[in-house]
């Protein structure tokens, strides 16, 4: 069975600094990995995904994520944080053997960017 862990409940970063939100995963086969963002009182929005190919994937709003198979990680990164990046971020995982597009979400990491 697949699982995903986000070890940090909260990440605090000053505006303009680089940010990293951590995610590790466990799956039976090759992973499909995702990041979603949730702004206050809104539904989740898809940010980016890794299915196959380059280990560094680029997504919306200047975010990128690096797939590391040996460390089973998929950390979300951005070179220069904006105050508007403050939100709740979810890592998610699935694999080819999962039924019906089922993806498992992590517990979420609240990102707070201070001016």
């Amino acid at each position, binding site marked *: 069975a697949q699982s995903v862990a986000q070890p940090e409940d909260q990440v605090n970063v000053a505006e303009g600094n680089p940010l990293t939100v951590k995610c590790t995963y466990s799956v039976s086969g090759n992973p*499909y990995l*995702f990041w*979603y963002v*949730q702004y206050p*009182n*809104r*539904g*989740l*929005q*898809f940010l980016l*995904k890794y*299915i196959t190919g380059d280990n560094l994937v680029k997504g919306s709003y200047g975010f990128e994520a690096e797939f590391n198979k040996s460390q089973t990680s998929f950390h979300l990164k951005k070179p220069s944080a904006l105050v508007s990046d403050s939100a*709740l971020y*979810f890592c998610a995982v*699935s694999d*080819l053997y999962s*039924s*019906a*597009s*089922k*993806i*498992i*979400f992590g*517990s*979420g990491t609240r990102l707070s960017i201070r001016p």
Partner: protein
Amino acid sequence: DTAVSQTPKYLVTQMGNDKSIKCEQNLGHDTMYWYKQDSKKFLKIMFSYNNKELIINETVPNRFSPKSPDKAHLNLHINSLELGDSAVYFCASSPGLANPAFSYEQYFGPGTRLTVT
């Protein structure tokens, strides 16, 4: 223009009542989902339908019954509401199973905040 819409946005009701939440998507997607997000923001899948057929049914009390009249709609009916049902319920959709590379990109509705008193 709204891709995935839910009604109502807020629902306040008393224990023991029966209520429904409606969801519609205009993206032409084949697969729809219901998620529950608790007060700690933990997101858990409840049900999924593909072309009106139930394909995911997680461990959910049978007081919860989904219904999909067509592939653009997935409604959630809850009988005998309990305090623990208070949460935000999200509907989502995805393109479907034909191409796994895209089937997992899910588009979420704005949520329905259910408060049971």
